[in-house]
């Protein structure tokens, strides 16, 4: 019996040690990696914001440049966007980029999206045929505007956002296109800023992601952001911080390392030929933007192409963020399910030197810290306090754990807010800055744990339940005024 007890005891000790080591390694490595990413992001943003040195394409300096720029198509998939679609298209047409075409894809809307477009832009049916060969759901009709030649509307059977973008690509006439959402508002120079990175190295740069910011609370007039302002809403401010951390504190660094795996669905500039070569947007995934970028990396590596995918931190697009827990949790669960789906789909790239930085670092980061993170973090939250109370964990180890689990996020958030305020300030100082800083301090206490729970739930649904497409409810920004 005593032998059995001894074996059991050592087995428990061994198991505890393994868990403790795993949790500790996870948090320490996560912290160090993110610190490294932050340092790189700071460096990149600093370099990027030094105008003359950073940008060999200066539209202000050379008037001839404006004649040499290529045309760009904005592909706007629209599903039940009756309330925002015409304002959104007008806003896109008013961008400072001179060679724009807007292709709106009505993806089988059940509301009056198409009628609204027909009314607002005097559309009429047309015999225009697709010029691209991506497979999509059947096209019901093509409409061209009799008052605005830059607008084309594709009316098709519902097939999801990816299918709608593919249809838009088929009807675009430009070598570059931007995939965006109907409820997004671009800053006037956003397209020029994103395209600048392509033109600096047109042979290699095949995609550029913009930066997404929350429009909630801002004053929007005639489809333009007149005064960016934070809405005093817990969920919105928390998301703004998350976006800043993700875009300015992480993706900029991955962009520098050519390991960027996510280009936002609201603002992604792509070389059309490259996307078509890679097979277009996949219609059977939940996060089509993430999946496409991974597939483009994969395609490039397998075909020995030196493609680069970058982020333009000053190419800014404003979009409506979920302002309540229910919608936000749905969105986050969908993202997490998409993440799991996509990394499983491209598991071959994992830790595979053939896929360079993406295979060796960016994708493993997504798997270990984004997909697997919730499991380890929840295990830590449940196990570490118990072990500490049982005296099985050193005080110093527990203190480091608490520090990393609850305060590392604070450091990352503060740093991201600082990068934003120094290099690409948009929110007002001091009100918005104080709000961002204050919420950065409290984000790790409550929200982070809630987010972990959502991701765990999504993991469970993915492996044992059903993946469902959750649609966000749009309030519409067109009529929002100050106050």
């Amino acid at each position, binding site marked *: 019996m005593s032998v059995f007890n001894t074996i059991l005891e050592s087995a428990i000790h061994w198991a505890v040690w393994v868990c403790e080591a795993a949790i500790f390694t996870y948090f320490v490595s996560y912290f160090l990696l993110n610190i490294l990413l932050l340092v790189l992001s700071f460096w990149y943003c600093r370099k990027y914001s030094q105008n003359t040195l950073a940008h060999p394409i200066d539209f202000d300096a050379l008037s*001839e440049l404006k004649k040499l720029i290529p045309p760009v198509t904005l592909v706007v998939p629209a599903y039940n966007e009756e309330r925002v679609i015409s304002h959104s298209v007008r806003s896109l047409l008013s961008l400072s980029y001179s060679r724009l075409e807007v292709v709106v894809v009505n993806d089988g809307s059940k509301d009056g999206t198409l009628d609204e477009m027909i009314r607002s832009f005097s559309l009429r049916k047309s015999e225009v045929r697709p010029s691209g060969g991506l497979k999509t759901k059947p096209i019901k009709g093509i409409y061209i505007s009799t008052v605005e030649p830059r607008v084309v509307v594709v009316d098709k059977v519902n097939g999801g956002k990816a299918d709608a973008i593919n249809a838009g690509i088929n009807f675009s006439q430009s070598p570059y296109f931007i995939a965006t959402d109907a409820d997004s508002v671009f800053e006037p120079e956003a397209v020029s800023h994103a395209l600048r990175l392509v033109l600096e190295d047109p042979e290699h740069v095949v995609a550029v992601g913009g930066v997404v910011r929350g429009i909630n609370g801002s004053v929007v007039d005639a489809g333009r952001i007149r005064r960016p302002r934070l809405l005093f809403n817990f969920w919105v401010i928390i998301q703004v911080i998350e976006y800043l951390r993700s875009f300015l504190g992480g993706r900029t660094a991955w962009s520098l390392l050519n390991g960027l795996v996510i280009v936002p669905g609201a603002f992604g500039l792509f070389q059309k030929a490259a996307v078509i070569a890679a097979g277009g947007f996949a219609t059977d995934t939940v996060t089509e933007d993430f999946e496409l970028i991974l597939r483009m990396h994969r395609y490039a590596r397998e075909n020995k192409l030196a493609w680069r995918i970058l982020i333009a931190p000053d190419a800014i697009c404003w979009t409506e963020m979920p302002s309540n827990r229910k919608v936000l949790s749905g969105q986050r669960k969908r993202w997490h399910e998409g993440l799991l789906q996509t990394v499983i789909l491209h598991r071959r790239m994992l830790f595979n030197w053939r896929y360079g930085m993406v295979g060796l670092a960016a994708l493993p980061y997504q798997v270990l810290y984004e997909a697997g993170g919730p499991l380890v973090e929840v295990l830590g939250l449940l196990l570490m306090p118990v072990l500490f109370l049982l005296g099985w964990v050193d005080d110093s180890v527990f203190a480091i754990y608490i520090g990393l689990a609850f305060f590392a996020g604070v450091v990352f958030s503060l740093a991201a807010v600082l990068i934003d*305020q120094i290099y690409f300030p948009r929110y007002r100082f001091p009100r918005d800055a104080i709000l961002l800083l204050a919420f950065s301090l409290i984000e790790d206490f409550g929200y982070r744990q809630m987010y972990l729970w959502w991701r765990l739930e999504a993991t469970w649904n993915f492996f044992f339940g059903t993946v469902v497409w959750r649609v966000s409810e749009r309030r519409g920004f067109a009529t929002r005024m100050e106050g």
Partner: protein
Amino acid sequence: MALCSFVLGVGTFFLMQVRYSRNLSYGTRRLSFANLIVPPWHAKSLEQLWSSSIKEDRRAIEEVLASQSQFLHGQESVTFQRLVTGSSIFNSWLQRLQNGSTLEKVDAAGMLGYFPDPRGIQALADALRDTSPKVALSCVLSLGRTEALAAVPALIRNLPNLPKSIPDITLTAALAGCAREQPQSLEALLKSPIDRVRILGAWAISEVAGPSVLPALVEAQQDSHPEVRAKVARALARIPTSVAVEALKSLVRDPVWFVRLRALHSLGELRVPEGGAVALAALADEVREVRYRAAYALRKIQGMQIEIVAHLLRSGSKLSFDSLISEWERSGFLDSVARELPEDNGARGVRAKEFLRVLIAAGVTSTLENFVLVYPQTQVRWSLAELLLEAPQSELRGRMLGLARDPRCDSHIAKAILEAEHRELPPISLPAGLD
């Protein structure tokens, strides 16, 4: 830990505050300098302001000078340019560009671009050879900004050695901007043994080409690099002569698709009748983009002639027809045909009707059906409905009934459609035993 976070938060806010205050104070000082540097300008007071300012203020003054130089016109601009180029500020830029640190050189080069002056252009030309790519870039941008012909030789001379980090589009814009008055000054680039230089040269020429560069372009149409040939085709669009048209006609037969595409586009831009047959033939090209461009050229050269479409419908391939109709429809082709329909248009109306019959017989009806509902002129809606009802296709009949039920359909047209359908319905024969 909580205290630590709080301190971090306050520290971050302090950093922001410092940054914000600095920006605010710089902006204020810049504004005050902008208020001081106003017409009528005095050289002495400008010199005094400059010499008595600290380094950061000098930067603000430079920014004010640069922004003012962009908004002044006519005599005011000349006076202001003379004031600055004759001042010690200008000399300090020249000195900094020669002897400063990399950052100082970049800034000085940037400022010299706002004030075109032979001394400045010479200094920028010399600095193109600087070992730092940032300085070279700044010099290229500034030389381009000056748009001075005197900058062209230096740019041409240094082009092969300029850093690869300077994008082609920037170099092209700089070259084109400077050579606008004398495009032939760029001809030498077309003879370079380096591909990139020839491509840049052809691209820049394509922005500014005139008859003076025609012989060089005709020679360059045989270039071994397709990019050069494509740019040559682009350039020829600016020279409306028979020699250019012949060169373009030969480039339309190029083995590389984007050269053919460019040549067709240029033929369309030139709008010469000789290009019509070439463009019509190119509608059968194997590359979709080339076919679209051929349709564009045809539209530009001959207008959207219904005979061409009818001809393609009868004898051409589906791909050619699709390319043509797609391109023309973006310019409102069917709209323009429908406009001809009313009876009072006489022969034109008859011709349009005949053409639409051919189109309907070929099954191209979706737009016309839509026109029956939404076309602004009632007479056109009537004529279209009649034409569609004449068609023998049974599936079209079904769709016409759908149109009649559409709330947007004119009640008279709807009635006519329903009546027409009833007229032609086969007599109902009841099954035996039921009568």
